[in-house]
């Protein structure tokens, strides 16, 4: 049986339309998804609503948004898990990215940062060497949800962010031909590893069961060890300082 759900959808268009919420009443089954509801709004109620979606099975990351304040992949978020019959659903774009229109944000800042750190795209099926090196981060779908959930990114847009830092850790751990010197430098920057305040919200929302916070802590330990080594004129940081 279909439920009646009140969607409150964030609307804005590059500053032309002042940000506000539009209400839409949607008949939807509890085992349908939030994305199904949004598509129904677009199809039958408001063709101007803009949102991103592609794969519909949690592998592209493009439908990431905030549902009732928490980052979700709307294609795999079931109505029954986030509201009830007669209930309300507040749908907003990801935080910490520039808003393009309605639920669409510009995720390119994160991609630029991922590029800077070598953008390791390695699938879990690939061999990873020692088991302790294994970290689900290889399955990162670059959805940006960790960037949105991170409280530090709310007030520091210079911060490299969880996805890029986890990628940096991955590249340093297993460079696969990438020159990691600049990545060490980037990781040791004041807006990098040291900026994280260990709220662990990145890992809470990651749809790939990745562990960006864990990767950041691992990178921190590497950097602490390198800093100790550099006191004795050894290690990669000392070599970098010496040119």
């Amino acid at each position, binding site marked *: 049986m279909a439920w009646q759900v009140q969607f409150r959808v964030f609307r804005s268009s590059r500053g032309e339309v002042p940000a506000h919420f539009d209400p839409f009443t949607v008949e939807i089954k509890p085992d349908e998804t939030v994305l199904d509801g949004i598509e129904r709004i677009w199809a039958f109620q408001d063709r101007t609503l803009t949102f991103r979606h592609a794969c519909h099975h949690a592998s592209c990351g493009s439908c990431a948004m905030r549902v009732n304040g928490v980052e979700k992949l709307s294609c795999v978020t079931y109505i029954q898990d986030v509201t009830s019959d007669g209930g309300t659903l507040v749908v907003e774009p990801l935080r910490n990215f520039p808003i393009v229109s309605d639920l669409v944000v510009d995720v390119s800042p994160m991609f630029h*940062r991922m590029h800077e750190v070598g953008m390791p795209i390695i699938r879990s099926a690939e061999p990873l060497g020692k088991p302790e090196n294994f970290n689900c981060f290889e399955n990162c779908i670059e959805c940006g949800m960790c960037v949105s959930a991170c409280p530090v990114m709310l007030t520091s847009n210079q911060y490299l962010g969880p996805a890029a830092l986890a990628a940096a850790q991955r590249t340093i751990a297993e460079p696969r031909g990438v020159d990691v010197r600049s990545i060490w430098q980037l990781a040791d920057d004041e807006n990098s590893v040291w900026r994280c305040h260990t709220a662990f919200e990145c890992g809470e929302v990651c749809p790939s069961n990745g562990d960006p916070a864990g990767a950041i802590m691992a990178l921190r330990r590497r950097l602490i060890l390198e800093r100790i080594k550099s006191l004795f004129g050894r290690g990669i940081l000392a070599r970098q300082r010496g040119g």
Partner: protein
Amino acid sequence: MTGNGQHNTALRWGDSVRWFDARRRGLGMWAFALNRITGVLLMIYLLVHFVNISVLYLGETAWNQLMDLFRMPPFLIFDVALVLVLLYHGLNGIRLVILALDIGVAQQKRIFWGLMAFGTVVAVFTAFGLFRG
């Protein structure tokens, strides 16, 4: 947005209020928000404490009167609250140092609850000691 991966939206200091919004978030976010709140409270306490000890300039009688006031039950409740704030901030700080060394990251929630259980025991004993005089 610029080509170097940095947002060109201006930094909004008002967003720092959202540090404290942990609704529907995980334990780590609650711990983070509480750490900030207790940090601010300790800062305020420190300033109040400076004012209190400056009463010493007014002489021994004034100081003794203030101490008598502080031994009254409403102020003892304040002392217990202060101990709770101190314990939370200190113990969570220890957790953060441990995690920053990449120790027990996968167990961060258990470490949190373990330290909080320890803090609760210490707080109960402290409260008991304070009220017993």
